[in-house]
């Protein structure tokens, strides 16, 4: 997906003015966010689970090379193929080559954010292969020729009226605003695609190194369909999704699912270890696992950002984020929106182009509070801000302007001297006798929608110095 991270300002302002999207986004607080808080509080040992999950992730990521090789050997011994793709293009090419070799005409896909990094649908179409998204939300987004709005709720921005019109235009169904009818229209359309498809492409939530197992979490059953019906199953998974042991899966399923939707468990968890066995009744004859880097090694290489690779892609930080709930998913301009996206997108697509993202946060910390593996997102946002301002570790990405840096330098030096501060305040008050606005010093960006606070006549420390303490204060004790 071509990043448009540069357009954050424009896109976010547009979104703020769209009443339908604002309504849908504000529903996230009482919806997913509240549900996930309730589910985690209902889990007796939630904090221990979080700590355990984080420790395991930390361990795997710190030994990623070894785990990748272990995973590879176990997938191969279960009869699957493994391909290591350094870039999105590399991964796409592997899939297209495979599809051509096997004469694949139709592909069914279950949800994969990584495939958005690859612009996979676009590429497949270019090569005459028809891709069908089968997750209901993804299907809607694909028909609308858009990109997902949310990691786990791709079409959260659309109203039922829009979806009804979209279905009528693109698949010729009758207009209806009944959600069940719309869903069953999609089901019927896609059931045929499942039957036709020559290849199923899925993402993956976890890769178990010691068994070579791919774990897929879903609610609709499209993940099961994609791994049951077509003769070839290709899974594309980011290299950070590894967990060591199958015994860790209980911990991670609870953390992921309860944080994502607030469900106690999702309708389906599918565990795939290679292709079907010869005696099995059905299932794909080939299994290909494509493990993708596509810039993740940059996060791995920077100790300040490494913990971004612990992310389970549950989307809880989006739901918790008051900024995401205003600006929505498309403003962030790339595959991953919200707080975690504001870290991942700049690193995977270029920091200076995405320089708005780390600053577009009030640093309230709600993201860190809900993260199932306690990723310190605010710390990394601050780190990226620092890199943009001072460029210590990313010199070529330094992109905060000269004037801002000069003002910062001047003000911080001024603030070293309290007398100078007091003097400035008195001067402002003096000026205010002829120009009253001098006591309302906030810039237009503030005062456009808010009153500026009023400067005091004298600073607190100056007032304090001129007080007769014994007379006026201490007697009050």
């Amino acid at each position, binding site marked *: 997906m071509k990043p448009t991270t540069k357009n954050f300002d424009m896109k976010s302002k547009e979104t703020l003015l769209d009443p339908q999207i604002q309504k*849908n986004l504000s529903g996230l607080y009482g919806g997913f966010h509240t549900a996930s808080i309730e589910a985690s509080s209902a889990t007796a040992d939630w904090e221990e689970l979080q700590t355990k999950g984080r420790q395991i992730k930390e361990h795997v990521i710190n030994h990623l090379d070894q785990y990748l090789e272990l995973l590879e050997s176990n997938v191969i011994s279960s009869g699957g193929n493994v391909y290591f793709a350094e870039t999105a293009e590399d991964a796409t090419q592997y899939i297209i080559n495979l599809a051509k070799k096997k004469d694949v005409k139709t592909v069914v896909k279950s949800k994969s954010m990584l495939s958005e990094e690859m612009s996979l649908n676009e590429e497949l179409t270019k090569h005459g292969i028809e891709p069908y998204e089968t997750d209901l939300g993804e299907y809607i987004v694909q028909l609308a020729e858009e990109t997902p709005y949310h990691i786990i709720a791709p079409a959260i921005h659309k109203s039922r009226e829009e979806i009804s019109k979209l279905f009528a235009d693109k698949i010729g169904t009758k207009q209806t605003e009944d959600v069940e009818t719309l869903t069953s229209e999609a089901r019927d359309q896609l059931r045929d695609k499942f039957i036709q498809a020559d290849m199923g492409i899925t993402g993956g939530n976890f890769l178990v190194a010691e068994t070579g197992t791919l774990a897929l979490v879903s609610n609709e059953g499209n993940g099961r369909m994609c791994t049951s019906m077509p003769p070839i199953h290709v899974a594309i998974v980011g290299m950070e999704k590894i967990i060591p042991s199958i015994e860790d899966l209980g911990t991670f399923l609870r953390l992921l699912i309860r944080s994502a939707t607030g469900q106690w468990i999702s309708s389906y*968890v599918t565990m795939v270890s290679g292709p079907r066995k010869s005696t099995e009744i*059905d299932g794909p004859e080939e299994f290909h696992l494509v493990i993708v880097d596509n810039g993740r090694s940059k996060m791995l290489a920077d100790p300040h950002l490494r913990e971004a690779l612990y992310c389970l892609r549950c989307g809880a930080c989006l739901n918790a984020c008051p900024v995401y709930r205003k600006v929505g998913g498309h403003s962030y301009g790339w595959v991953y929106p919200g707080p975690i996206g504001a870290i991942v997108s700049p690193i995977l697509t270029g920091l200076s182009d995405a320089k708005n993202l780390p600053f577009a946060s009030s640093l309230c910390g709600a993201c860190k509070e809900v993260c199932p593996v306690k990723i310190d997102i605010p710390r990394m946002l601050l780190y990226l801000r620092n890199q943009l301002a001072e460029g210590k570790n990313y010199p070529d990405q330094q992109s905060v302007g000269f004037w801002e840096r000069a003002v910062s330098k001047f003000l911080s030096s001024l603030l070293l001297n309290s007398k100078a501060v007091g003097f400035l305040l008195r001067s402002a008050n003096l000026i205010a006798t002829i120009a009253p606005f001098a006591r309302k010093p906030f810039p237009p960006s503030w005062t456009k929608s808010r009153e500026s606070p009023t400067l005091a006549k004298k600073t607190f420390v100056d007032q304090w110095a001129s007080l007769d303490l014994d007379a006026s204060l201490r007697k009050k004790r």
Partner: protein
Amino acid sequence: MSRESFLNRVKEALSSGSNDETDLCKELLINDNVNDLIERTEAIRYQSRTDWMKLYDTLTLSSRAAGWKVHRCDSYDEASDYIATLAFERNLNHIVISDQESTGRLNLEKGNLPPESEITVVKPDDQNPSFNRRRALDADIGITGVDYAIAETGTCVVSASNEVGRLVSLAPPIYLAVVDKGQVLPSLDELFTIQKKDFVDGSANSYTSLISGPSRSADIESTLVTGVHGPGEVHLLLVEED
């Protein structure tokens, strides 16, 4: 080519961060004490058999919460009656059923079912493999037994195998799972311990589904809908017969 440079890049990236030298293999399958795993698995199975009543109680609650219609049956005859009643009430003409021990104990004779109903037992040795698929896609209900059920989450664990096709529990609009006494595990953790043992001794299946309620989606205006690509209605029979 790609593989080497991929792994080298990861190694390079790691060397610029902190890297403690834990002995990985200690925690991994290959070096695991197999006897210990077998002992743990046996203990879990023993507990499932002895605590079956308590586990059924918990499972009843958790699976109802997950969206199953739960029915406790004294016997396989009662389970068969439940299915027959359902078939009459809902006009279930096409029934697909897996070829397992538990489903084999059901008594689904033509005489008990609506006269027009057809039962297909899905078996691997059919002449025409696409026949099973067609039957599953056309069926009104799919019936399988389970490997395990999980009391914590209201989950049925169903592995694909020579006895159970992947589509029986997925393609029909109604799914019914039959749980046998002693098949209930307390939580997900026990399941994964058993699965680890299965991987060690080579008895693991290539495909396992954890099924917890109906297929569902809230992708349109966060409105919950059941029955998207999988069954919208799911029944769970907990059989208490020995």
